[in-house]
């Protein structure tokens, strides 16, 4: 556009002038990728650092206690002065019991919630329920811990008289309650992202809502649902406060859920808060347990990725 008079500039001229000014200035644009890369590298380095510390200290532990004893011995008595034994089995069983009970609670309830929210709930109901679920996910785990000990355990005791004050059942159920919102919310995301047109295709064939949900939507969302379950179970494996407060501290390799247990995480808490001396075998044992825990969650994540890829249904 030509210039009308001396005071009026055309837009092109203004842009050209601004660009000239910019060129003389220091160019931020070129710096941005570098800065972003730095932050990305930082978190990767931190992770690598943690893993290396774990590996390093774990090796020192295995200098003192043979890895075969660690894996095969069925007794975990680290504090015994005369006859200490370090068999990881009881702690692993404790963790598995909690995770198993949590899964039994969280998977059906979480999935049912997700199905309701994604397929049946009105927009209004969804708007109320989803935030409540997210609040549930935000409750500090220590609160869940004493909820398990002071509320759930007494109720369970009335039903099962032989239940000990510290047991696997109560914290298992409460861990399940804790991870239910995660299963529900992530599964709901997976189901909601199945395109509407696919639902219409099923309805147009005379399928009912339930037939559409079970036979079309769930299979289409299976990878997302599996990922949500595995992710939630990883949290159950790593859960610490609830089991420390309500699970007890008796390493126990039996699969009885009514007696006191100790999980891998609870053991690490016990040692960290107690007075085990620096560089004692007990001190190093928490790294070995931590390493085991890390391998568990790593395996779970790899498994989730495998499932996601294998069952991926494209749409």
């Amino acid at each position, binding site marked *: 556009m030509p210039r009308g008079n001396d005071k009026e500039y055309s837009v092109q001229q203004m842009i050209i002038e601004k660009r000239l000014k910019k060129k003389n200035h220091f160019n931020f644009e070129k710096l941005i990728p570098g800065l972003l890369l730095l932050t990305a590298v930082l978190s990767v380095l931190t992770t690598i650092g943690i893993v290396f510390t774990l590996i390093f200290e774990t090796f020192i532990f295995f200098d003192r206690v043979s890895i075969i004893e660690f894996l095969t011995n069925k007794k975990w008595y680290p504090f015994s002065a005369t006859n200490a034994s370090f068999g990881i089995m009881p702690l692993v069983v404790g963790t598995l019991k909690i995770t198993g009970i949590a899964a039994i609670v969280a998977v059906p309830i979480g999935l049912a919630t997700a199905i309701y929210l994604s397929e049946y709930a009105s927009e209004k109901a969804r708007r109320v329920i989803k935030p409540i679920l997210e609040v549930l996910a935000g409750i500090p785990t220590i609160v869940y811990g004493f909820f398990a000990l002071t509320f759930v355990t007494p109720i369970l005791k009335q039903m099962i008289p032989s239940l000990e004050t510290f047991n696997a059942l109560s914290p298992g159920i409460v861990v399940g309650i804790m991870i239910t919102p995660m299963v529900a919310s992530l599964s709901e995301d997976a189901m909601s992202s199945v395109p509407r*047109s696919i639902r*219409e*295709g099923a309805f147009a*064939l005379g399928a*009912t809502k339930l*037939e559409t949900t079970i036979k*079309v939507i769930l299979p289409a969302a299976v990878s997302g649902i599996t990922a949500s379950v595995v992710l939630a179970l990883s949290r159950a494996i790593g859960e610490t406060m609830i089991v420390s407060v309500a699970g007890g501290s008796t390493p126990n390799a039996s699969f009885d859920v009514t007696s006191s247990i100790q999980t891998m995480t609870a053991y690490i808490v016990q040692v960290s808060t107690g007075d085990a001396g620096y560089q004692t075998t007990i001190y190093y044992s928490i790294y070995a347990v931590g390493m085991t825990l890390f391998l568990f969650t790593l395996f779970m994540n790899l498994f989730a990725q495998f499932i996601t890829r294998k069952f991926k249904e494209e*749409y």
Partner: protein
Amino acid sequence: MNVTLLKSQSKQIENTQTTHIEKQFVYKTTDLNLWYGSTHALKNINLDLHENEVTAIIGPSGCGKSTYIKTLNRMIEMVPGVKTSGEIQYRGRNILDKSYGVEDLRTQVGMVFQKPNPFPKSIYENIAYGPKIHGIKNKKVLDEIVEKSLRGAAIWDEVKDRLKENAYGLSGGQQQRLCIARCLAIEPDVILMDEPTSALDPISTLKVEELIQELKNDFSIIIVTHNMQQAARISDRTAFFLSGEVVEYRDTTTIFSNPTDKRTEDYISGRFG
């Protein structure tokens, strides 16, 4: 003896004739009105749709043609805030009556959508899904249904060696014919098609059009299209919708060669729309 036989025969013929006359219309629409909230989308629609014919519904965007076809299998109910008045009789029963089971209706009236929407399953499972939910479990029967439906939709030769593969590996045109096959699998009476070729390339469009010509021997087809040439090519009767009203409805050759309404003439001669 002979006389009575003849009499009874002629009676039979009469009977078949009367039933034939009753069956001539699949749909009778009487004073249908439809609102989306406060928007009046369909206004006093009166339209009778014929058996074993292809009826095309044409009109510019927003004229209510898609709304109308979705009312015929009550898919429109999925839109929140829809209200209707009037009557749509399908084979003599009012489908807008709440006592009419919507699943029953949709097993009689199949639908093919604007964009191909196969299920994220294998080709085989896509076809078998309909019969399966309606209780057909026998593997041999299902195999037969799958083959027959895919042949019916003229796609069997292209997919017979890859029935176990995911349907999303097919091209857009093949996916749409798969969706037609999925619809055929439950042997419906009517097939509704909502702009079935609008997302397809010209060659796939041609294949689907040829298919529609064949299907009309066994099914009554109602097709919404924004493509007037398509309507002229494939349909027996055409209804022209404008702003929620039926402007003109007659057999296709007449409406395109000799429209009575000025608005129809303007539309088909490309003056608007």
